[in-house]
């Protein structure tokens, strides 16, 4: 028998054996992976916090089991993001409270979210979902210099240094505002630590599910009702029909930034306005693909409307040809301008009364104020949104028809006031 006098040479067989085991195990792993390929990870089927010894989890499992359950189903928990990572702050941190021997933010601010989601928070801060949403209700009073500077830098934020509190919100009073305007407009509310916004308005706590945030029902929380019925319009649009009839087959958990028509054969709110799709990169600046200020009484093109249009059409062209898109944009531009004409007419009627001092200085204290306001704020907007989002019933019966109806009412009210003043 050959005898090796070198221990290293003696280990040859061992090395070959280990290599053979490695090779075999690898083959088994490969076969396993191939047979289980294409299966998404269902974290909701696994309680990833089942054996957690985290003190927050242990206590809140009794105190508020709902949030622990939600979080245990989340990909954030699966990625081992602990409660403390988002909630715990140093003593004296603005807005924090002492809690169970530490200091926490009851509702983490975007200053915490930006630790991991810097790009998304920066984009959000540049959008109308940021400070402009909050200022639209609360005005600029009380905002710090830093916040005013941030507001001024938002390209499509409609900066006005002395915006006052919204007249309707002021009339309704604080007791109502929290349940009314602010419930939505607080998406851009500044926090005590100087950061802006509430990611959790869309990314519901504590699951932070991609599917949830991508589904149109999420936008429905705010984008509904007579002033901006986008959800209803979407529901009746061909895109919405596709979603409601076939959306259950779509790939809601697809990796962000890789979405194609294979994942989403028709558009959702997120596909058009946020997600990366086709040649358009994802962005949390929700206005980045819009060409008009449709929410305004008289719509004008946004400062960067050409680039914005390019981005939106980069999404459209994944399903529609350029001729279709061009024709659609041309027709929708004309329809928007037509609504503008009708609103201008209402302005002239209302303006004549103002000029002749036939209106009180106080806002919303007589029926004509409401009629004038609803004409553009409800019906004008609805017509335009209906046009651009392809909801004909909304652009017609809930929109253009109501504009005409309001105009007729306005004319009659104005004529009556002028007659009463002997100015007819």
């Amino acid at each position: 028998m050959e005898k090796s006098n070198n221990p290293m040479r003696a280990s040859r067989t061992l090395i070959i054996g280990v290599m053979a085991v490695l090779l075999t195990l690898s083959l088994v792993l490969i076969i396993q992976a191939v047979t289980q390929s294409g299966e998404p990870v269902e974290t909701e089927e696994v309680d990833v916090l089942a054996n957690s010894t985290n003190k927050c989890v242990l206590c809140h499992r009794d105190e508020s089991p709902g949030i622990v359950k939600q979080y245990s189903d989340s990909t954030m928990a699966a990625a081992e993001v602990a409660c403390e990572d988002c909630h715990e702050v140093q003593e004296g941190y603005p807005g924090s409270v002492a809690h169970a021997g530490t200091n926490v933010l009851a509702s983490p601010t975007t200053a915490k979210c930006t630790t991991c989601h810097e790009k998304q928070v920066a984009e959000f801060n540049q959008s109308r979902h940021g400070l402009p949403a909050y200022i639209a209700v609360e005005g600029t009073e009380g905002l710090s210099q830093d916040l005013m500077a941030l507001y001024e830098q938002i390209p499509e934020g409609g900066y006005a240094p002395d915006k006052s509190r919204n007249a309707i919100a002021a009339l309704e009073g604080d007791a109502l505002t929290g349940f009314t305007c602010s419930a939505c407009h607080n998406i851009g509310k500044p926090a005590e630590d100087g950061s802006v916004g509430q990611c959790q308005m869309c990314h519901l706590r504590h699951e932070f599910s991609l599917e949830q945030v991508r589904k149109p029902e999420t936008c429905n929380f705010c984008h509904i009702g007579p002033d901006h019925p986008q959800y209803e319009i979407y529901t009746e649009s061909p895109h919405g029909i596709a979603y409601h009839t076939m959306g259950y087959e779509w790939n809601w958990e697809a990796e962000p930034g890789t979405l194609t028509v294979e994942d989403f054969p028709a558009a959702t709110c997120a596909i058009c306005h946020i997600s990366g799709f086709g040649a358009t990169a994802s962005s949390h600046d929700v206005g980045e693909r819009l060409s008009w200020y449709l929410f305004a009484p008289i719509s004008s093109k946004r400062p960067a409307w050409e680039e914005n249009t390019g981005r939106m059409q980069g999404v459209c062209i994944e399903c529609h040809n350029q001729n279709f898109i061009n024709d659609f944009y041309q027709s929708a531009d004309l329809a928007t301008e037509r609504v503008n004409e009708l609103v201008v007419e209402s302005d002239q009627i209302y303006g004549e009364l103002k000029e002749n001092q036939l209106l009180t200085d106080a806002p919303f204290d007589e029926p004509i104020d409401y009629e004038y306001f609803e004409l553009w704020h409800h019906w004008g907007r609805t017509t335009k949104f209906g046009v651009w989002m392809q909801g004909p019933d909304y652009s017609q019966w809930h929109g253009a028809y109501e504009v005409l109806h309001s105009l007729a009412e306005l004319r009659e009210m104005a004529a009556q006031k002028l007659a009463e003043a002997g100015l007819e």
Partner: protein
Amino acid sequence: MYHLAAIFPGIRRIPVPFSRDQVMMLMLSLNFLLLSVETYLAHLVSGTIVINEWIPILFSPAAGVVLLLAGILSFRKRNLAVILANLVFIASIVVGLLGAYFHLMRAILPDAPAGQQASIPLFIWAPPILAPLVYVLIGWIGVSTVWTEEPADSGKLVLNGEKTIQMPFSKTRAFFFLTSIGCLSTVISSVLDHSRTDFSNAWLWVPTIVGIFAATVAFVLGLYENPTRADLITYFCAMVLMILTGVMGLYLHIQIDLTSRGEVVVERLIQGAPFMAPMLFADIGAIGIIALLNPEKVSRE
């Protein structure tokens, strides 16, 4: 043994200015430089690069540059160059193991009920567990390369000074085994990554089959003390297939990342199919071919 010359006898007439070890060192330096780009892109996927993720991004270019400097230094101060190169390669092994640990931690659910803490789908969807092991492999090949083998194919490595160490296999055979491990980790990474789809795309089977074939061939070749020309040709073809698979994968990944009209969107390049990843096949294939070069020292007279 000059295995490449056994396959292509005419190659002996071509003067090669570098030794096999020097070519391997150059290849490893290039690897580090490319890895810096690849790890940067890979870690950019989540949108924000956290502290741990910066380790390989910063280490890779630094390691590449230090290795190149060590290569230049080796002409005058060989011992210092060997120490520098060894430090880089040992650090590379540490970085690789750390990375594999961090990736593994993302793939398992430590607080989940027993039996649900780890699963194949979790491994598929987690950050690629085997990817950081490329650093270990480079470090391992590097350490094997740095020490001179005297005489060639003896497995006797000359350490600093006169001290020698007898390895179980010759350097060439060790390279074949390391190439096999490289092919293996590459094919597993590729299969796990591709398992995010359902393998219905026939092209996905190409790297799977080629990778398994190359890993097996390299392993078997390492077993032979005196391989035949036919063995070497089979191995060479397997490595060429690895290179072709890498280049083809690069093309296919870029194609998938382009929009339907062929436009480049940076986000899709970063978030989509990792376009540099298939080049790992080409990389291992090239390392496998370098192992066939002449193990003798190059005479500079």
